[in-house]
């Protein structure tokens, strides 16, 4: 997936395999993985002659944003799917918390 994100143009299976230099993967393995990514909606593919060309369906940041929105419980529905360490606080509560930190003698590192 990183290969697709880094590329500016759609890649064939062979090109993806060539860019995965750190791992020695069989052509069919790469093909299977790309096919699976396409089925799950993470990659788009288009016909180019006899080969498929793959590109990422959305950029990396979009997925990171989706993860974080879900994690920070800001998707609107407070679901029980994940357990956040600290939920987002109101401004008033933030002031109370900052005072608590100061009273602990901790210098604010922000």
């Amino acid at each position: 997936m990183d290969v697709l994100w880094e590329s500016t143009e759609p890649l064939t299976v062979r090109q993806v395999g060539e860019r995965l230099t750190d791992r020695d993967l069989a052509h069919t393995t790469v093909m299977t993985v790309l096919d699976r990514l396409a089925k799950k909606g993470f990659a788009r593919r288009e016909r180019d002659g006899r080969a498929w060309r793959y590109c990422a369906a959305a950029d990396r940041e979009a997925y990171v944003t989706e993860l974080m929105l879900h994690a920070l419980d800001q998707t609107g529905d407070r679901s029980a799917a994940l357990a956040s360490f600290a939920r987002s606080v109101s401004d008033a509560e933030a002031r109370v918390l900052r005072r608590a930190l100061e009273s602990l003698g901790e210098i604010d590192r922000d």
Partner: protein
Amino acid sequence: MLAAVLVLAAVAVGTIPAAAALLSARWPYRSPAAAILLWQALGLSWGLAAVGALAGLGARQAGWGVAGGALTGAAGAARAAVLGSCPAMLAAIARLIFLAAAAALLALLCWVLLAASAAVLLARRRHRVLLRLLAHGDPKVPGALVVDSPAAAAYCVPGLRSAIVVSAGTLDLLDAAELAAVLAHERAHLRERHDLVLLPFSALNRALPRCRLVRQAYGSVALLVEMLADDRALRHRPARELATALIRVGVSSAGPAPSGALAAAQAPDGETAARVARLLAPAPPLPAAALTLICSAAALLVAVPAGLLLLPW
């Protein structure tokens, strides 16, 4: 049979003011585990008693409790409704209506729980797929995944293939000791499967989003579960590290005020502050006698409706 129905109805109605009382009580912060147990008992007791009272109204006297009476009652009432004389027929139809209502309520409660579980499993699966694509390990947080995002977030994805996730923003924000406290907190969630504790309450909240008592009960149990995980983390880490970690992550999330729909998703005021206060100035846990009393009350709450439903008398 009438006595049993009256008791069941009294339990079903009585659990509601009991829940309201538990919401405003202060002792749950001192012993969150006992309070969670009581919440679970209240919820289960309400469900059993409500279904049981309806079924009891349609049941016929029988040696096998309300559940057995309801089954024989259904067969008898159906026969009487078809074959009986006019007054007997009306009575039989009324009994059938109560039995149908009981069956519908039971089916609805089961459906709500199943639908919520399915939604949670789907959301987690999507989340895990994304994590596999995006997250990486980091020596600063052994055993956890790191997502490259400047926002401060730390959370766990419960389940058989569980994961603890920390954002790069959190790594910058917290020192090593605070990170260890966060990991201890999240590990407690995963180890004790706190998500399963929360699931029935979130399911009911999804089904009845406008019911204030249900929403508050869900919020209360969610906060108690966090406090329980805080307490577990204290077994391994000093309270001060956990408190400063909480403050830093909480304050950083305040940032620019979120607008519209996002603001609605904010926690009710003071959840994080309440946890910090509890860590820095801990109240003593409840004495053993009080804990015994709470556990007995919880057992009784479930045993009475369950007994009336199932036991012969």
